[in-house]
């Protein structure tokens, strides 16, 4: 184990624990990932670019990322608001609401998909009130945003909530003593402290939404060039036995999500350093 440069510990079981995790990681995550790289490298540039630059593929990638960005922005606003209400206010049924926030984590995506579609269809429980206003949700890109908002909500709430809980009241009292009104305190004292967590949560929601499939395909209507998301393109290419085409689209999505992962990690590093500097 000299390669790992492990510092001495009296605790046993490092080799066992490390061995099991590395073996399982290799088998389940790294091997399939490597296969993907092999499959892409066999394809060659012309085939790869030909698939990726296809009009339908580009439209689907654009839709996936734009819809995910809008949903993430909605979640940033309402997630922050919800976390604030849950931490700061006394509210009837707060425990229940707090538990319900995790519903999108626990509810399978296909169930969420058919439930939202039925609700937002023109004759559905919610859709019937929107239809006379000329707002069509189901089977349009707007429906995709609704589904992705549902999926991403807990990410923002659960990242912001602990930071709000840790927030020291004394700081706000000090701001108030120094003559700040409540709005100034919220904007200048509370918001900057919460911001790193808010950005992290929003990015997590965005990352999850870009790859989401189950909840979206029901409500999207899947009209080519209009409401067809990138994961669906992968599935339909596979259904047509076009493995190379599916792989090409998947590689683009993978690269983008890895870039996002990197961004999240550096954000966390940045906020940890900033908090460290403050204390």
């Amino acid at each position, binding site marked *: *184990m000299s390669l*790992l440069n492990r510092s001495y510990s*009296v*605790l046993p079981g*490092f080799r*066992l*624990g*490390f*061995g*099991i*995790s*590395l073996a*399982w*990681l290799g088998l389940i*995550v790294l091997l*399939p990932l490597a*296969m*993907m790289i092999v*499959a892409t490298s066999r394809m060659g540039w012309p085939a790869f670019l030909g698939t990726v630059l296809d009009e339908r593929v580009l439209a689907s990638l654009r839709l996936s990322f734009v819809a995910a960005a809008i949903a993430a922005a909605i979640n940033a606003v*309402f997630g922050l*608001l919800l976390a*604030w209400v849950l931490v700061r*206010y*006394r*509210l009837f049924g707060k*425990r229940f609401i*707090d538990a*319900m926030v995790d*519903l999108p984590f*626990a*509810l*399978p995506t*296909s*169930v*969420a998909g*058919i*439930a*939202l579609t*039925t*609700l937002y269809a023109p004759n559905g429980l*919610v859709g019937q009130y929107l239809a006379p206003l000329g707002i069509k949700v189901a089977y349009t890109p707007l429906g995709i945003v609704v589904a992705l908002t*549902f999926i991403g*909500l807990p990410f923002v709430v659960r990242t912001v909530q602990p930071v709000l809980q840790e927030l020291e*009241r004394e700081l706000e*009292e000090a701001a*108030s003593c120094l003559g700040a009104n*409540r709005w100034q*305190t919220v904007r200048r004292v509370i918001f900057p402290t919460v911001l790193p967590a808010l950005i992290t949560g929003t990015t997590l929601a965005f990352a*999850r939404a870009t*790859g*989401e*499939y189950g909840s979206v395909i*029901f409500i999207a209507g899947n009209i080519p060039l209009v409401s067809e998301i990138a994961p669906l393109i*992968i599935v339909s290419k*596979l259904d047509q036995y076009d493995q190379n085409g599916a*792989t090409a689209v998947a590689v683009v*999505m*993978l690269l983008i*999500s890895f870039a996002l*992962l990197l961004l999240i990690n550096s954000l966390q590093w940045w906020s940890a350093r900033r908090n460290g500097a403050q204390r």
Partner: protein
Amino acid sequence: MSDSYSATAEARWVRWSLCGVALAFVFLFLLIPLLSVFQQALSHGVGLYLAALTEPDARAAIGLTVRSAAIAVPLNLVFGIAAAWAIARFEFRGKTLLTTLIDLPFSVSPVVAGLMFVLLFGVNSPVGAFLAAHGMKVIFAEPGIVLATVFVTFPFVARELIPLMQSQGADEEQAALVLGASGWKSFVRVTLPNVKWGLLYGVILCNARAMGEFGAVSVVSGHIRGETNTIPLHVEILYNEYNFVGAFACASILALLALLTLVIKSLIEWRQAREQNQASGRVQLARVRRAGEHA
């Protein structure tokens, strides 16, 4: 919080409207979709609901879902404990990389995850061809479904345990070892009791995702009715056939599972908070402070 004016509270109308917006959002986006699943499932009576659940294809789907979760969850449980032990209890080079790699499945689209296994075990790959020659089918069969499920639920247990074990530190285990306990005994008697709630939480989340996974499983399953259909896939097929009662009936099982998951999670959090409070007496402190504010 008292109702009188306070320097660290908002005006009453601000509080009311914030609460109102938050409640409306939860109601519209979370509660109504959940309730509508049950409403739709029971919309044509209990008889049809039960008939949709006991129909052979639905029963086969339920069986397959339970089977694949029963394989995937224990595997990831063992992995999660092993990874948390190595990462939270030892210092070694490449620890950050290992942690990042464990989180990787979270940032891969489920559909892409499924595709990876098709590329690895499909008929066009050398591995798949070798297995097919020996009469083993992975893709469009149960092993593929289990593999895809393991992939998407890979980080759950490890992610729950690592921060928990890191915050607890190794003092108690070291004490047990110094007092003469074997490594295994200190693990069973000290480590496991300390992390039991976090572990349970990780397992139920892992299980909920395993039983509900759609995208990854959909790519590797082949959608053979009664054979390789899990409950979420069966829901999709029924829905696309306009059999809404059947689709929502099967969906209601998954929704119940989600509710159960949330209830267990809340219970765990409640117990954890109580245990922590008993240990630190923070409840008393908070109560005293609040009383002081009211006075």
